[in-house]
C-alpha cells in the first residue's frame, strides 16, 4: 500500500465566464520514504496539486488516500485533525510566527494535536539540533537568517512525526548555496526518519536531487520518472 494514492484528481475553477481546469485527472502513487518533486511551468497545476494533497481544499472529482484512508468524505474538522496528524508543511515564505521563538514555532503544531504533545518539547529541541539550530532555539524569527528560518519551518513540519511533508517552493527564497544546504537537511531527515517528502519546485537543479520527478502541464501528469532520467526542460 502506497503512502499516498491519488486517482483521477480533478480541480476545476469558475473564473469569469469560463472554467479553468487547474488539475485534470491526475493519478499517481507515492510510497513511504520517497522524496518526490513536482515540477512544471507556472499555471501547470502543481500548487493546486499540493493544496489538494495537503487537504487545504476539496477536489472537484477524484480521490486521495493517505495511509490507505480515503479523504473525500471527511468533514472539515476531521480533515483539520488529519492535517495535524499526517502532514507537515513547508512554505516558500517560511510562515513563522513572529512573536514566537524558534522552539515555540516548532512546537506550534502540538498545540492542535493533543496526541503528540507528550514529549513534544524534547522532540522539538532534538529537531532543532538536527537542522543545526540547537543554539538558536530561543531566538525570534527576526533574529534568524532566511536559511535558518526555513530550517525552523522544516523542524516544525516534522514535530508531529507526519507521514508526508509537503513543501511549496521550500527553497524559492534562498540563494543556491542555502537552497542546496536546506535540501541536504531535508534529504538527511528523509533518509533517517523515512518520512515521505513531496516538494513543488521550479528549480530543476533542486528537482534533480530528489528521487523522482513528476512533471505537470495543463493540469495533467506529462512525465513521472526517477530524477536521474529527466533531462532539463
Amino acid at each position, binding site marked *: 500500500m502506497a503512502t499516498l494514492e491519488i486517482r483521477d484528481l480533478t480541480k476545476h475553477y469558475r473564473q469569469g465566464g469560463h472554467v479553468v481546469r487547474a488539475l485534470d485527472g491526475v493519478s499517481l502513487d507515492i510510497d513511504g520514504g520517497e522524496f518526490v518533486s513536482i515540477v512544471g511551468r507556472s499555471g501547470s497545476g502543481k500548487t493546486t496539486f499540493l*493544496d489538494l494533497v*495537503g487537504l*487545504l*481544499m476539496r477536489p472537484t472529482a477524484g480521490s486521495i488516500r493517505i495511509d490507505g484512508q480515503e479523504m473525500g468524505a471527511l468533514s*472539515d*474538522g476531521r480533515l*483539520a*485533525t488529519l*492535517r*495535524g*496528524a499526517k502532514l*507537515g*508543511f513547508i*512554505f516558500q*515564505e517560511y*510562515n513563522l*510566527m*513572529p*512573536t*514566537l521563538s524558534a522552539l*515555540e514555532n516548532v512546537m*506550534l*503544531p502540538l*498545540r*492542535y*494535536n493533543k496526541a503528540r504533545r507528550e514529549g513534544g518539547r524534547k522532540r522539538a529541541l532534538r529537531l532543532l539540533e538536527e537542522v543545526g539550530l540547537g543554539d538558536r532555539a530561543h531566538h525570534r524569527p527576526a533574529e534568524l537568517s532566511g536559511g535558518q528560518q526555513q530550517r525552523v519551518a522544516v523542524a*516544525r513540519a516534522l514535530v*508531529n512525526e507526519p507521514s508526508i511533508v509537503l513543501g511549496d517552493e521550500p527553497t524559492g527564497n534562498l540563494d543556491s548555496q542555502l537552497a542546496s544546504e536546506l535540501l541536504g537537511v531535508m534529504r538527511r531527515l528523509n533518509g533517517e526518519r523515512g518520512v515521505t517528502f513531496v516538494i513543488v519546485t521550479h528549480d530543476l537543479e533542486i528537482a534533480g536531487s530528489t528521487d523522482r520527478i513528476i512533471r505537470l502541464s495543463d493540469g495533467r501528469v506529462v512525465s513521472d520518472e526517477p530524477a536521474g532520467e529527466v533531462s532539463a526542460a
Partner: protein
Amino acid sequence: MEIFRNMARRKLRSVLTISGIVIGILALTTMGAMASNFNALLDGGVKYYSSSIQIGPDNGALGSVVSTDKVAEIKRVDGVADAFAGVNLSLKPGDISVVNFGVPDMIVTHDPAAGKYATLKMTIVQGRDLDPGSRGEVVLGYGVAKEFGKKVGETIDLPVKPKDAKPDFVNHTFRVVGLLDKTLTAPDSFAEVGLADAQMLLADSLPEALRGKVDTSTLATGIEAYALPGVNADQLADRINAEVSGVKAIRPSVVVNGFKSGGAIFTAITTGAALLALVIGGLAVINTMLMAVTERVREIGLKKAIGAHTRNIMFEVVSESTVIGLVGGLIGFGLGAGIVSLVNATTPPSQTTLFLITPGLAILSLGFAVALGALAGIIPAFHAARLDPVTALRAQ
C-alpha cells in the same frame, strides 16, 4: 504569553483600545459605587420601615406632634404587639451649610424594648445600650461619633450649637454610654436618647410663642407600632386609622415602595454607565481585533494548515479580546476604586460619603469587562475562522 506578545506588536493600538475599556469600566465603577452607597442607605430604610408602622398627627393638624396618650389607644388595637412614642429632632438645628446626599443628623428617641421588634438590627460596638428611663445619656451612631470624635465616657452637648446661634440658644450635656456599629444607613446619623430627654429637647426647640406654655412631657413627634407575628402590617395600619382618632398611620408598603423606587433610579444610573462602557469599549475591541485578524491572515492560514480547527482559531481570537477586556477592567476598576476612595477620604466628617465599593461591585465591573472583551471578540473570531486556508496562506 503569546496573547501579550500579540498585544505588544501594536502597542499604541493596544493602549488606545484598553483605554476605551478603562474609561467605560471607570464610569461603571464610580457610578456603581455611588449606586451601592445609596442602595445601602435605601435598603436600610426598607428593612427599618417594613417592620414598623409609622404613626403621626392626622392630616391637617398643626405641627408634627401627637399626644403620648395615643400610645395606649394604639396598643389596644387588635394585632398590635407594642407601640412606642418617639421624638425626632435635628441634631444640628439651623445647619444649612452643605448639600447633604445622606440622612441628616438627628436626635431620636430610643426605647431598648423596641429593639426586639426591629428587623434592622443595630449593634453596640463600644459601651452599652440606654437603660430604660435613662436620663442624660446618649448612644451615638457611627457617623455622629466620627464627626464629633466622641468615645464612650465623653460628653456631647445636644443639640449641637450652630456657629451663628443666638445668645438664648439652649442645649444640654449628655454622657456618651454607647457607640453603634456602622450600618451604612440612617442610624449612622443618629444620637439616641431616652424619651424624657427627647421631650425636654422638644420643649427647647419650640417657637418662642409656645415656649414655656406647652407641656412636652405628653407629646411625641411620632409613634411607632409593631404588628404581632402573622398580622398584615398594611391592614393593621388601616385598622389603627379606623379605630384611633387624631392620628394617621402610614401603610409600611407605601414607605417601602418609596425607597425601592429610589433604588431603581440608582440601578438605572449604573445600567446607563454599563451601556456606555459597552458602546465605547466594545466597539474599540471589535475594531482592534478585526484589524489584528486582517494583519494576521497568513498566520491564521498557517495554523489551519498545521491542524487548527475552527474552534481553535475562534478560541485564540476570543481569548485575546478577553484578555484586553480583563486588562482594561483591572485598570479601570483600580482607577475607579482609587478615585472614589480618595473622594470618600477627603469628604468632611460632617458630610455623608458618596461612594461605597463592595465585593459585588468589583465582581460586576471585572466580570463586565471580561464579558465585554469576550463578546466583542466573537465577530472577529468568526471572521478569522471563516478564512479559506489556501487564500490566507498566500495573502500579501
